[in-house]
């Protein structure tokens, strides 16, 4: 007797269909799984046997062969359990439905027959929803994250018994709250701009970063509020739409980082510790899994103490920063994960942290400072559009309750307006840049042209201040965003002047005092 049913597994972020074929034949009772299963798939044997028995069926005392096709694709994870169990029940004719529904089966089985959540249900379901007439049987525990998908029929179940009842047309899958109108959750527990004292230049820098998708580097002594500013950044990023929420959530689904919360409530904010390995940052592992940069997809990646990060980890950031995705190749497979994030980095001005501090003394030698700054390579700095230096706050500034600054909501409104301008401007551009930071040189000629005064300023800056020419394109992109924040279609000289203030590391002499 043979039964064929369909399941699927993930390759990177894409679903690959897997045929589960179950054959029962005469001979010594045995149970084998073929088709490049890894340890977790092979262990399905014990789970499936126990689950079938505990659901009240007899496990066939025949020779059971399960084939997972295509045979050359490595399969890992416990998501085939349900498909294997159902296949065995059908093949042994313990269940004889009038009509076997055409659908994909996903689910891990517990020994008592209940169905456990699987890793990566969202990307699997999302990838399948792009194919016509897909339907999916999946664990009830995964329904929260996939319920917002359209174009796919979902049948969530809690245990094997109710699956059998459904097959026998004796029961229906539990109804779930269907894709109700999705709304981004408001931020709570987040630092508001109005709570941060002083640091007006840094706040302005963050506003520009949020409006144009520019990466930002903050340089300041300890206690100047670098981490607090970074934490406030998600609050001024534009609200995200359902597609973006799904984009971000599906990475977390693959990393198994969703714990009963359905979709991510708001843009992710990741701040890995500086001891993170390149694999932890970029993703990888024996079986590829996404790293911090992908978990920060559509959100913010904050790297505090940038020079303390491992050099190889930082260097590896270059390609994902440019392409918005990361390709991982390993002996046991390859994967591509999205990594379109806003990079915010912070560092001290010197190893001891007090260079330029009005009160405290810096104890670092010039060589030490050069080594410290040298840890961040030129190519990485080239991908950071904005450099902001934070002055140390004076005591009275910290305790000045009267000083009020704008709230995040006000800044966010400006940011969203600027984003809208960019969206309408780039609608008919060929490779449709996401934002100003991703303009190509060709787009820039058309959309970020300079006035003669602007060019004069640029030329004078290069001649007199020793600004390096390689920062030209960055400058124009930032100036474009500054103009957008003012809803100004043409880039004026003052926009360029402000942009130049955010390229302090490009000046001749750089940070050397």
């Amino acid at each position, binding site marked *: 007797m043979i039964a064929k049913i369909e399941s699927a597994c993930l390759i990177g972020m894409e679903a690959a269909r897997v045929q589960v074929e179950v054959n029962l034949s005469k001979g010594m009772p045995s149970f084998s799984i073929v088709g490049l299963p890894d340890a977790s798939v092979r262990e399905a044997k014990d789970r499936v046997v126990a689950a079938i028995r505990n659901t009240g069926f007899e496990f066939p005392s025949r020779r059971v062969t399960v084939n997972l096709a295509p045979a050359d694709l490595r399969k890992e994870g416990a998501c085939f359990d349900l498909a294997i169990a159902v296949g065995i029940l059908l093949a042994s004719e313990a269940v004889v439905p009038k009509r076997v529904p055409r659908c994909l089966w996903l689910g891990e089985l517990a020994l008592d027959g209940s169905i456990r959540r699987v890793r990566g249900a969202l990307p699997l379901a999302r990838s399948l929803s792009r194919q016509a007439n897909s339907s999916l049987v999946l664990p009830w525990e995964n329904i929260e994250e996939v319920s917002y998908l359209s174009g796919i029929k979902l049948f969530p179940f809690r245990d094997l018994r109710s699956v059998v009842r459904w097959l026998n047309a004796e029961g229906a899958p539990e109804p779930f709250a269907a894709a109700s109108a999705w709304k981004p959750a408001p931020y709570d527990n987040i630092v508001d701009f109005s709570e941060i004292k002083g640091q007006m230049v840094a706040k302005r820098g963050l506003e520009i970063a949020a409006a144009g998708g520019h990466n930002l580097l903050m340089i300041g002594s300890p206690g100047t509020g670098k981490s607090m500013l970074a934490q406030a950044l998600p609050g001024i990023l534009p609200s995200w739409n359902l597609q973006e929420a799904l984009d971000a959530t599906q990475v977390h689904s693959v990393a198994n980082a969703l714990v009963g919360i359905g979709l991510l409530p708001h843009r992710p904010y990741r701040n890995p510790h500086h001891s993170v390995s390149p694999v932890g940052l970029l993703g990888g592992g024996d079986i590829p899994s996404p790293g911090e940069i992908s978990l920060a997809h559509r959100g913010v990646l904050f790297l505090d103490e940038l020079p303390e990060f491992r050099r190889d980890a930082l260097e590896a950031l270059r390609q994902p920063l440019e392409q918005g995705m990361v390709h991982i190749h390993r002996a046991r497979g390859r994967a591509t994960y999205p990594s379109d994030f806003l990079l915010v980095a912070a560092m001290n001005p010197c190893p001891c942290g007090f260079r330029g501090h009005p009160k405290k003394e810096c104890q670092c030698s010039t060589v030490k400072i050069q080594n410290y700054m040298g840890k961040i390579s030129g190519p990485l700095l080239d991908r950071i559009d904005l450099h902001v230096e934070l002055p140390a706050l004076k005591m009275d500034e910290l305790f000045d309750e009267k000083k009020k600054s704008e709230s995040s909501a006000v800044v966010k409104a400006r940011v969203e307006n600027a984003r809208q301008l960019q969206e309408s401007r780039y609608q008919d551009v060929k490779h449709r840049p996401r934002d100003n930071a991703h303009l190509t040189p060709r787009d820039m000629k058309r959309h970020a042209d300079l006035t003669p005064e602007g060019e004069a300023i640029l030329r004078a800056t290069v001649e*007199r201040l020793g600004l390096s020419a390689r920062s030209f394109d960055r400058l124009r992109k930032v100036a474009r965003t500054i103009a957008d924040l003012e809803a100004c279609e043409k880039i004026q000289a003052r926009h360029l002047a402000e942009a*130049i203030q955010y390229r302090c590391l490009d000046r001749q002499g750089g940070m050397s*005092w």
Partner: protein
Amino acid sequence: MNSEPQAEIRRVTDEDADYPKSLRELADRPKVLYIKGKWPLPETCLFGIVGSRRATPYGLEAAKRFTTDLVRQGVVTVSGLAAGIDACAHRVTLAEGGWTVAILGHGFEYVYPKENRILFKQIAEKGTIMTEFPYETPPMAQNFPQRNRIISGLSRGVLVVEAAEHSGALITARYAGEQGKDVFVVPGSIFSLQSAGCHRLIKEGARLVETTEDLLAEYGCQARPAGSERRAAAPSDELLTPMEKTLLELLSCIPVSVDELAEASGISVDRLAEGLLSLELKGKIQAMPGQLYLRYD
């Protein structure tokens, strides 16, 4: 890199008549001097002001005060064109319309440190730059201490404003002592590392000065009262926009952060950028690391 043509450089040997008399007395005098700017030097009223490269705000304020007063007495200041106190002394002298002499530790092909390039140009125009090293000599650590003997050798006395335990300013003070020149020291906080060297000099017998009067009294002259009136606006100020004028009023040779400027002027930081860059391009102010600006002229 310094693009000025070599032709503007004057070469003076110790056999020439205009070789400084005070240097001629030194046993280890430089055989050849390369000079840019005003020449010959006056003979009597030169005074060295040296100190830490990593000066504290206190040190900068002190350097500014002593330099201002001395320049108003007609003193010509001598220093090493390093960052920190040296640069401050040169800058304040120029701002007061005085004559300042910078002694380099390398050849004229280079400007070191690079932040001083504007200052370098200004001194070449309004003061004197001098080095014993040929044109192509790059800045090398071992060359800097020996130029200090020229600083002290030219000067009647040397004022050490701030010096850490192993500061180059102490070398200048030592040369000054060996050459029989007066060494004056500005005291600092006992907790400040940048004053540790100064305090050692005082313990070894250098003269502690709190005011310029202390210093001048040593030479038996009466200090002219230091005027606190603001300098009249230079004619070139006419070309400045109102915002630039406001900013110049707020800036001095003590660095001020953009945040503070925004607060004091009531102009938002995004608008300030334009004025600051324009002033910087006009050579009136300079940006310093740490989002700080200081006035140049």
